[in-house]
């Protein structure tokens, strides 16, 4: 049967409907498996180097601050964690960060919009997983990274390229299913 323009006209809406249905199905599947989150803000930093910055140290802790230059050429992949003492999910993820630190993984912290005394007290109380700790009181470095809430965790490879970003607390599942395989892959 030849495809007349009339038939084409009838088939076009059907084609659009099929494409739409496939799109919705993919979205629903993604929602089910967790690979698609309509509220999640995808990071534009993945695949790129960290933006230029220089974070001052957080006095009371005695830990050095850091700059973007220091994130390049490292002996192993590294985690950069944005946190604050006033952030409740940060307490949830803290044991996981402590565990990684004990295993020798480099975790560098960025203390976001916090009072230095509160931040120091948080670390005395819950333990300190950070080798370095920069203070971002104005929150501008966080905006340069595309952070939209604390906690947020980034994994950088040895060359300083961001390979992974996790918004929200690092749960034991995230640690086992995401961070460990990534640390192995980029080791």
């Amino acid at each position, binding site marked *: 049967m030849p495809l007349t323009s009339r038939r084409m006209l009838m088939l076009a809406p059907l084609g*659009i409907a099929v494409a739409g249905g496939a799109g919705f199905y993919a979205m629903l599947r993604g929602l089910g498996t967790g690979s698609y989150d309509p509220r999640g803000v995808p990071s*534009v930093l993945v695949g790129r180097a960290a933006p230029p910055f220089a974070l001052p140290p957080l006095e009371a802790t005695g830990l050095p601050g850091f700059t973007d230059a220091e994130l390049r050429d490292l002996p192993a992949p590294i985690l950069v964690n944005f946190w604050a003492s006033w952030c409740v999910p940060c307490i949830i993820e803290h044991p996981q960060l402590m565990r990684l630190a004990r295993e020798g993984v480099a975790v560098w912290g960025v203390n976001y919009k916090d009072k230095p005394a509160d931040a120091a007290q948080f670390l005395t109380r819950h333990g300190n997983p950070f080798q370095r700790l920069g203070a971002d009181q104005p929150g501008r470095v966080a905006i340069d990274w595309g952070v939209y809430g604390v906690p947020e965790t980034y994994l950088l490879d040895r060359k300083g390229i961001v390979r992974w970003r996790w918004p929200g607390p690092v749960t034991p599942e995230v640690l086992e299913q995401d961070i460990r395989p990534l640390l192995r892959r980029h080791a």
Partner: protein
Amino acid sequence: MRRLATLALLGWASLAPALGVGLPSEMLRDPAQEERARAIGRELRCLVCQNQSIEDSEAELARDLRRIVRERIAAGEDDRAVVDYVHDRYGDFVLLRPPFSAATALLWGMPLLALGGGGLALLLLRRRQRAEQGAWPEPAPLTPEERARLAALEDDAAR
């Protein structure tokens, strides 16, 4: 008194969106520049509340982004450069009118899809109606008695 307070509060609440939540302290002095900043801010999505623009949101991050927009405008950047600055950091998600791409095709195609679906439903409905009309049986011809009765009734009506 209490009712009056509620009314005043409601009045204020209905006014608030028009005014924006911007405090006078964070507004630009030049009204033209402030107007540009607001127009840009209304196109940028608050990443915390997500269904508000940064101009309408009370979130801390939205306030920071409002401040950045105003700083950049005051520094003489054009609208495009200001939007690009935020877009570079937060991607398409921050734009309340995202560009057309594979990921947003369904979003932009939705009106077409709804229109097509509605049109198709209408077409099918009309087809069924027409089929049902065709399905009515032809009425049987009148019998001689019926014809006589009809004539009598017509005569009655004429008189």
